[in-house]
């Protein structure tokens, strides 16, 4: 018989994404430290927690030691959508404990105990611990935290202490608190990015490490690292069902019937080789029963719909019928995990069966950490398999002409079950497009190289490999006039 494990009760922070990485929220009745340099977002985050808590029917108390005045703080906070003037002061009060602190930290606890008893808040914020670290010794600060823990337990109040931290020096409070959350703001080139890191959270399966965070007019939103949460390969069900047509009949035959259901296919090729066009064919097979979704980074929905129309593909009609959704995120200033979350949310909502991602590099541009792209996409691909989505994504190769293919990211080929290679080949002052398949999950496939062209009716793949063979053996004179 396994021992019974008690899960510590949690207090929801009410901050989108934050509870997810905290394993449900702050430890109820515990004392937590929220640290970060000035401008990192501590004040916004802690106020947002207070207003979320009172909006849920609770009471909160915001106490400052030596921090900005509550009037100044409220002027700033009142510009954010979570601010509710009617909650102050009945459900949320702002007080200063600095006068008490001028004598002893013990007097702050005495004052707070009195406030906890009379106001009965379930959430207490103490802003400005740095001043206590300067004014008092480590033993007094530890005693202060200990007494806060006792008071919190006694009155059922969860405490969050705000501090600027002290890099490189000893912080006595770190050893005492139940949880430590650190906010960071770092510059990557010219771009400033915010991150939140759970460094300590007692008795929980918190998602440690750094996660992206943004502050908008709605306050803070945290984007948990997708690869830390999703895509458990053990949860991927055994493949079942019929192959999905690509919309290019000859390609389907080369694939052994089409794309295996719930699989991930990579189209790798140079610029202009028709990677997007093949994806448009794939999505043109979408139906209301089997909806499709296009995620693009460079071409907007109207441009894609026009491109499809020029190929004779009825995108606008499919969009109007609710069989197809076009999403486009410009590749600038995006947050990788926000992209992943929004994509998954739309897929769930639309019950998408066919997904075409036009450009893996759109994900790369959304993170300053290039090493995250493959783990991120591996987790995303697994999640898509779990959801039963058949995915096609393109990746551009750096070389433009020739049969040699260079994978842009190490490990890319491992995350796709099916790989279709597209090439440009030059022969006798003319460029030719060639297509080959190197991998198809659980299926026999055509190993020969085929020439293909892009016409007013879309992609046309040569019935046999005669032309490609002639090109590759140097006998291309016949091919120049006899392409598909």
């Amino acid at each position, binding site marked *: 018989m396994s021992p019974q494990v008690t899960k510590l009760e949690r207090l929801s922070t009410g901050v989108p994404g934050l509870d997810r990485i905290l394993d449900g929220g702050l430890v109820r009745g515990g004392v937590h430290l929220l640290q970060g340099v000035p401008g990192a977002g501590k004040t916004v985050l802690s106020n947002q927690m207070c207003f979320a808590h009172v909006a849920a029917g609770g009471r909160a108390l915001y106490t400052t030691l*030596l921090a900005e005045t509550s*009037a*100044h703080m409220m002027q700033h906070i009142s510009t954010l959508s979570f601010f509710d003037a*009617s909650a102050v002061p009945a459900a949320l*009060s702002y007080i*200063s404990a*600095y*006068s008490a602190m001028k004598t002893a930290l013990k007097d702050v606890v005495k*004052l707070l105990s009195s406030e906890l008893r009379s106001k009965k808040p379930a959430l207490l914020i103490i802003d400005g611990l740095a001043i206590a670290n300067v004014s008092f010794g480590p033993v007094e600060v530890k005693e202060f935290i200990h007494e806060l823990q006792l008071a919190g337990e006694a009155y059922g109040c969860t405490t969050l202490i705000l501090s600027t931290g002290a890099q490189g020096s000893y912080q006595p409070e770190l050893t005492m608190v139940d949880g430590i959350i650190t906010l960071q703001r770092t510059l990557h080139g010219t771009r400033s990015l915010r991150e939140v890191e759970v460094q300590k959270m007692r008795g929980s399966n918190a998602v440690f490490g750094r996660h992206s965070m943004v502050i908008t007019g709605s306050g803070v939103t945290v984007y948990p690292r997708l690869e830390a949460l999703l895509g458990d390969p053990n949860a991927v069900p055994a493949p079942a069902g019929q192959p999905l047509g690509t919309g290019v009949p000859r390609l389907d035959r080369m694939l052994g019937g089409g794309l295996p259901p719930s699989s991930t296919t990579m189209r790798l090729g140079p610029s202009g080789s028709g990677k997007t066009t093949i994806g448009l064919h794939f999505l043109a097979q979408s139906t209301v029963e089997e909806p499709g979704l296009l995620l693009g980074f460079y071409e907007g929905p109207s441009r894609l719909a026009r491109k499809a129309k020029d190929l004779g593909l009825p995108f606008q009609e499919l969009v109007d019928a609710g069989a197809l959704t076009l999403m486009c995120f410009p590749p600038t200033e995006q947050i990788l995990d926000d992209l992943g979350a929004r994509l998954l949310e739309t897929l769930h909502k639309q019950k998408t069966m066919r997904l075409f991602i036009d450009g893996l590099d759109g994900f790369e541009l959304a993170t300053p950490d290039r090493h995250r792209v493959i783990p991120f996409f591996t987790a995303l691909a697994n999640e898509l398999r779990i959801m039963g989505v058949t995915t096609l994504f393109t990746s551009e190769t750096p070389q433009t002409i020739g049969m040699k293919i260079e994978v842009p990211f190490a490990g890319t080929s491992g995350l796709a079950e099916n790989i279709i290679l597209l090439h440009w080949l030059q022969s006798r002052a003319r460029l030719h497009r060639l297509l080959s398949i190197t991998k198809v999950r659980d299926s026999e496939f055509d190993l020969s190289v085929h020439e293909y062209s892009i016409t007013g009716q879309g992609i046309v793949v040569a019935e046999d490999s005669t032309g490609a063979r002639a090109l590759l053996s140097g006998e291309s004179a016949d091919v120049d006039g006899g392409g598909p």
Partner: protein
Amino acid sequence: VTDKTILVIDDEYGIADLLQFALEDANYRVLTAPNGKMGLAAAQQHHPHLILLDVMMPIMDGPATLRALKADETLRDIPVVMMSSIDEARVAQLCQGFVVFVRKPFNLDALLGLVEKTMDG
């Protein structure tokens, strides 16, 4: 220095000090207290000519202090100016119709004008 005494009841560091400096500059005698309980004791002891009273404070908040002042027949006629970062209507509601109010963060000249006007009656 005039013979007029003003009691400032505010918990926030800097605000009571700032008001004290400004009011002393305007020749008032100034007393300060960091919460309503201590403010009430100071009022009972010194009978100030005017009280500047913050709304949100520990131990005893502004509305509770105002009620205690009005319940004490020796203090109920002392004019009180409420100060807060929350809006006037909300303060009026909390203070059961009390309307002499200054919004934080305040302009000192405007506050001094209000003090003078309130004290004059």
